[in-house]
Every structure is written in structure tokens, then in C-alpha cells.
């Protein structure tokens, strides 16, 4: 695909709205938990519904893009979870910053490992419930 302007791309693939949690292939177990929490509190969500092109080559082909984990249509809010190492977080921060520059009208919130870990602690969920490798390194306390 080639793009010559900043235009988010709807991504239907196999993550269409209306699919149940069981039908969605989440990239990380923590994303499934996040989806369950949103579902529990009756917040409508979509998993990775949009791709935001970030960089183009000389021919207008997208060479870098970013797809936030969740979109909450009723709140018009994108959410990105980062339950990974600081090195990767820095890279992701840069992408989110770029998204905000190129698409100033979108609302996006980034949840860092500590944010998400503390949220789970509130619900009495320990890293063992999740099983994600990076997450198990979580330290004590809500922060």
C-alpha cells in the first residue's frame, strides 16, 4: 500500500468489533486481561483497529507505522499497553509521540508496566495470572 498523506488506516483483519475475547489473537496475555477488564466494566473496545502510518519512503510507501492496542469508541480513546523492557518502551514512546504530532486530533494514552501492574494489583491479580515473561519481572507495590 502507498500513502502520501497522514491518514489512519482501519484494520479489520481478524479483530473486527463484535468478536469475543476468545476469538481474538492477543499479542500478549496482559492485553487479554485488559480486554477482560474493559468488558467487565461494560466499556466497548476494539483491538488494534487502526494503523497510523508514521514514516514514508520517497515513493510514498509506509515504512513505519503504529497500531495502538485498543480503541474505546465511546470515549474516543486509544490505549497502548507497554509491559516490556525499558529499552522497548523508549522506542514505543517515540512512536506514540510521533502519532501525536502527525495525528493531533486523536486521544491516546499509554499504560506503562507499572501502571498496568498496579491496576492488576488493585484487582488482586498477580503476575502469575498473566504468565507474560516481561511481566513476571514486576517489582512489589503499586508504585
Amino acid at each position, binding site marked *: 500500500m502507498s500513502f502520501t498523506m497522514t491518514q489512519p488506516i482501519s484494520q479489520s483483519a481478524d479483530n473486527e468489533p463484535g468478536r469475543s475475547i476468545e476469538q481474538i489473537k492477543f499479542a500478549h496475555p496482559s492485553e487479554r*486481561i485488559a480486554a*477482560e*477488564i474493559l*468488558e*467487565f*466494566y*461494560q*466499556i466497548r473496545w476494539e483491538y488494534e483497529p487502526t494503523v497510523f502510518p508514521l514514516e514514508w519512503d520517497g515513493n510514498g510507501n509506509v515504512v513505519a507505522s503504529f497500531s495502538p492496542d485498543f480503541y*474505546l469508541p465511546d*470515549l474516543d*480513546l486509544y*490505549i497502548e499497553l507497554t509491559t516490556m523492557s525499558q529499552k522497548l518502551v523508549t522506542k514505543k514512546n517515540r512512536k506514540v509521540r510521533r502519532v501525536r504530532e502527525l495525528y493531533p486530533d486523536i486521544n491516546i*494514552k499509554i*499504560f506503562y508496566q*507499572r*501502571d498496568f501492574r*498496579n*491496576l492488576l*494489583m*488493585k*484487582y*488482586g*491479580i498477580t503476575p502469575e*495470572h498473566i504468565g507474560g515473561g516481561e511481566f513476571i519481572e514486576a517489582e*512489589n*507495590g*503499586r*508504585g
Partner: protein
Amino acid sequence: MESRKPVVPIYSAEKIALRIDALGAQIAQDYQGLDLRMVTVLKGGMFFLSDLCRAADLPLRIDFMAVSSYGAGSPGVVRITKDLDDSIENAHVLVVEDIVDTGLTLSYVLKMLRARNPSSLKVCTLFDKDVRRIVEPVITYSGFRVSDKFLVGYGLDFMGKYRNLPDVFSLEDLRTDN
């Protein structure tokens, strides 16, 4: 008994009491002559409600509700496990929360209460932790804006414990001490 270094609270009982007095005075002024119902969500909010209602010099009424909480592998959706005892139709309702974090529980509660046609519906929270806010409910009265620490005490719990501490601590500090 082994001696332990005292853990310094993030918010002492005295500091909390002073803030609640100020909130109570403001609420008393704002709701003068109105039929005010202070409603809290069990269990955490009961401590704050108990002090706040006494700090507000008004002939107000109090009521309680409880909602189910998400747990790992929880099936279904949030639901009311204890409803209000009285109707709130045409009443001025102030939802009293110990802490607003993601806003998920509060937004559900507000949605449920709004459907019952109160004259007004506002929120008073002792602690406002907005770093992880997902839903942004309007908070009219706020005691303290807090950073991203896991707070326990004065109604705030970890796995059901520590609610009874009169001061508010960082859980991390308490655990380090133990």
C-alpha cells in the same frame, strides 16, 4: 515484640481530617436547603463517608451500595451486589469515593444512578489518582490529587487488608518495613 522503624504515612490522619473538614464546609455551603444524599460504594468509601457526613453541617441522608469487582477470569460484567435502600429520584446525590483511579467503577455507578433521575449527581473523592484514568468522570470535590503509589489505609485496601489504618501509607513502604 521486635522493634520496627516507624513507617511515615503519605497522608496522616490529622492531614486527612483537616482536608475533610474543608470539604465538609464547602459541601454544606453548596447544598444548603437541598435534600442531600451522600452515597458511597462499599467497602472502601465507608470511612470517608463517615467522616465527611459529620463534617458537613446539613440534615443530609446517607446510603450505601456495593458492586462486584473484576477478578482474574471473572465471567460476566460488573453488577450491583448491594443496592441503595432508598429512592434517589429528585434528590441531590453526592457520590462519595475513597479514591478514583481508572474511573471504571465510578462511571458504572454514575450511569446506574443517573438512570434513577436524581435532581443532581456529583462526585466527591478523597483521593484523585488520574495517572491511569480511562474514563473521565467530572469530580466536583477532591481531597488530594495523588501520584501513582499504591495507597493503603483509611479505607484503601490491598487484598482486603489495611483498610482500618487511620493514616494512609504507600503499600511499598509498609512491605519494606515488614
